[in-house]
């Protein structure tokens, strides 16, 4: 029966095409001059360049981490190109009409029309192609509400004070090896600023696409929610199918000031590599948010792609009564390795966190939840609840749970539960007896397993995520 299930999990990677677009791509290699050139390409002010160079200096002194349970060949950082942009983007198109039609076609093929009238109503989108932001839609409408939504490169020019104040404030340059690298070479990403008391009128979304060969993508996202504001943001990612591994090392920083709410959702579908583990993206990402008094940050992620995933979207619950949430679905198959989870750092009084993690392992993959819940000495009355469920499909995969719990406060309560299960023969039989083919049955049971997480996604994307999982589960049943 498990063979049947595995076949049901067989899938095509639908976003695996390559777009023939003429690009300006740096020769591979990394040194100070490359960083100067990136900064120059973006016509950055001196302070930004200095910031990058300091990060580079730090990075040089750091050791490349070796992680237990994650195995991949050593990365040659000199074999990567750190900048690539479509030639047509060199003279900054002012509107969509000026954008290279091949670029637009790429996004159409991915199911993301960029003309506002064709887009999902109520969703504004920033589109990043390799190292540059192609377009940001609905800017005027957002501007009416005072919301800033633009590429981070643009923000460096237009809102230098905001960027200076918050960049690196949540994830310091020296935080870890890949965060330091990102700080030195980040190329583009999104910047969001929600003014005091504003409820962002639309969903904000960024779509990241890696296209060029041998390039790394190092995006940087910064979201600042002022007091009492509210924003929901979603990112999606895909890349062409290739035999070589590519590195994606992003940094995301969220700042939720008093009474603010940030909802951050990710649908990650980078190319996972083939059955034998050839090719695929190394997804080494640092995501962290800080919550001030009464603020709330909610991370939701659906992870189906990448050869290796290493990411722990985290919350620093600094302010009293602040809330952190983490909802995750990670599906691995083939030879994928996912090591993902969250860190909830409770510093303030009555802070609360909830962690729901659903891992599905199939094929020869390994799926690991790794998390930290920390109750500081001042976190009186803090609460955490964690639930980690694993679903194993077949006996050649692995499912692992490594939760670290630390408490220094006698009035804090931490609860952690983890279970493991499989798609049972009885469940499959019942579905088939009701007329469903095994493929549909497995997809339905797996979706049911993930339901608690899917219901956290913004409505516009819940369907999208369900479909993604469905594509992931689609295939031939012999």
């Amino acid at each position, binding site marked *: 029966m498990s063979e049947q299930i595995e076949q049901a999990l067989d899938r095509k990677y639908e976003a695996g095409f390559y777009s023939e677009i003429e690009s300006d791509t740096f020769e591979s290699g990394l040194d100070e001059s490359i960083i100067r050139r990136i900064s120059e390409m973006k016509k950055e002010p001196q302070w930004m360049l200095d910031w990058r160079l300091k990060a580079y200096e730090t990075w040089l002194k750091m050791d490349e981490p070796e992680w237990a349970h994650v195995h991949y060949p050593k990365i040659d950082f000199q074999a990567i190109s750190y900048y690539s942009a479509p030639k047509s983007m060199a003279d900054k198109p002012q509107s969509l009409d000026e954008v290279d039609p091949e670029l637009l076609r790429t996004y159409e093929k991915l199911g993301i029309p960029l003309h506002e009238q064709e887009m999902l109503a109520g969703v504004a989108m920033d589109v990043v192609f390799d190292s540059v932001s192609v377009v940001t839609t609905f800017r005027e409408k957002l501007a009416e509400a005072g919301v800033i939504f633009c590429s981070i490169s643009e923000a460096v020019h237009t809102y230098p004070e905001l960027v200076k104040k918050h960049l690196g404030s949540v994830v310091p340059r020296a935080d870890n090896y890949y965060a330091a690298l990102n700080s030195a070479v980040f190329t583009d990403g999104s910047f969001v600023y929600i003014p005091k008391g504003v409820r962002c009128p639309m969903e904000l979304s960024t779509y990241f696409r890696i296209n060029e060969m041998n390039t790394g993508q190092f995006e940087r996202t910064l979201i600042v929610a002022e007091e009492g504001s509210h924003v929901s943001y979603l990112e999606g990612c895909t890349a062409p199918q290739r035999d070589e591994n590519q590195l994606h090392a992003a940094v995301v920083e969220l700042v939720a000031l008093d009474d603010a709410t940030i909802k951050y959702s990710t649908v990650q579908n980078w190319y996972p590599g083939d059955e034998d583990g050839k090719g695929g993206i190394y997804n080494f990402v640092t995501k962290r948010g800080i919550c001030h008094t009464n603020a709330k940050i909610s991370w939701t992620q659906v992870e189906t792609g990448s050869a290796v995933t290493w990411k722990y979207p985290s919350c620093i619950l600094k302010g009293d009564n602040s809330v952190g949430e983490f909802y995750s679905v990670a599906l691995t198959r083939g030879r994928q390795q996912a090591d993902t989870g969250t860190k909830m750092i409770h510093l303030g009084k009555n802070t609360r966190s909830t962690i729901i993690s659903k891992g599905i392992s199939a094929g020869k993959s390994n799926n690991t939840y790794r998390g930290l819940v920390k109750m500081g000495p001042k976190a009186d009355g803090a609460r955490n609840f964690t639930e980690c469920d*694993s679903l194993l499909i077949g*006996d050649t995969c*692995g*499912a692992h*749970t490594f939760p670290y719990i630390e408490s*220094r406060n*006698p009035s804090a309560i931490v609860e*952690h539960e*983890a279970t493991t299960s499989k798609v049972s023969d009885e469940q499959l039989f019942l579905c088939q007896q009701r007329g469903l083919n095994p493929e549909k049955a497995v997809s339905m049971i797996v979706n049911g397993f993930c339901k608690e997480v899917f219901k956290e996604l913004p409505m516009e994307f819940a369907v999208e995520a369900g479909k993604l999982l469905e594509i992931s589960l689609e295939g031939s049943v012999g």
Partner: protein
Amino acid sequence: MSQWLNKVISDARGVDDFLAPMRQQSLNKLETDGWPHARSEEWRFTPLSSLKERVSNESSLDTSYNVPQIDGLESIDIVFVDGVLRTDISKLSLPHGLNLCAINNASTDMQDEISRLFGQVKPSRHVFGLVNDALCEQGVYISLDDNCEVDTPLRIINIAAQDCDAHTRALVNLGENSQLKVIEHGFGSQASFTTAFAEYMIGKEAKLEHYRFAFFTGAAKQVGGSHFSLQERANLNSTFVSYGSELSRVDVDIIHAGQHANAKMNAIYLLAEGELFDMHSTIEHAVPNGTTQENARGIIGDKARAVFSGRIHIHRDAQKTLAELNNRNLLLSRRAMINTKPELEIYADDVQCAHGATVAEIEEKALYYLMSRSIPRSKALVMLNFGFVQELVNAISNEPIKQWLLPMLSERFANMEVK
């Protein structure tokens, strides 16, 4: 490298007996691994600084030790004082089928048996296990014949009395369908450092009832472990009770080597003052159809610190395994601290595994209820919190041991500072 470890390595070169080849292996590993890195997963939360530059003294022989008795318990006592087997104060009337010999006094036949067991169950996980491999000149080998049931418990007593280093080892071999009760009873409060490791080979359909009491307090540092290998349909029922000291660490390994074996383990730790206690448990399901249930509960008061790591490892072939681990902790004070990490590592799909860990506070409602019935707050706290570990004490089937533990633990608890 540490000064202390260098000394250990040079001392170990002088040990030459029938175990020399195995000792040499561990010594080589010690030299390669060196002193644990501060970030090493094994010692991440347990500071070893007090040991690193330790200067160890020579022990002197002294006869005036009181071997603690457990009221109402008739036992066979094997007593080590500062790492030296003391036949003068041991009680050694052995029933039929139970064989015992000192490692440093073994006949050629026995030497063969000992070599077959030494280091076979205990993994070479950390530095102090390797130190024990290299340096434990004193130790006992215990074997129980097939089909033999021994009702009188066997107590292996470890007393740390003087400020010296002491390394002891117990190797226990239970024949097929045999039954044995073993109590590892260690204590000390004077400045000292001891390592005490025990390896158990539980034969087919054999039953072991096991206790380990690690009552080291103050400056009495101990690192030790009890390691079990279960053959087909073997049964293990084990209870650990620990206090904390400057450094107190126990490693437990339960290895399912044969199918349909059943292991149950309960652990209690009760920490006061500035004590540290660290328990690392690993459950290895290497074959199908095994069952393991582990419950660890701790109360951490004052400035004490507890570290718990509980790992369940289900190997590819271990289908139909049932494994559960639960760790519950109560912090009594603002300066107390707990690091707990339950781990699941699973490579088989048709298994039932679960773990849970909680850190909780005293139930305010229950406290209020008791106080409204005119029970003073301090007394009410004792009643409520102690119930939490008492449950595990009550699960002990041996009546004299239960009756001996209860008042001892509740007294220790009553003296802890609450909030």
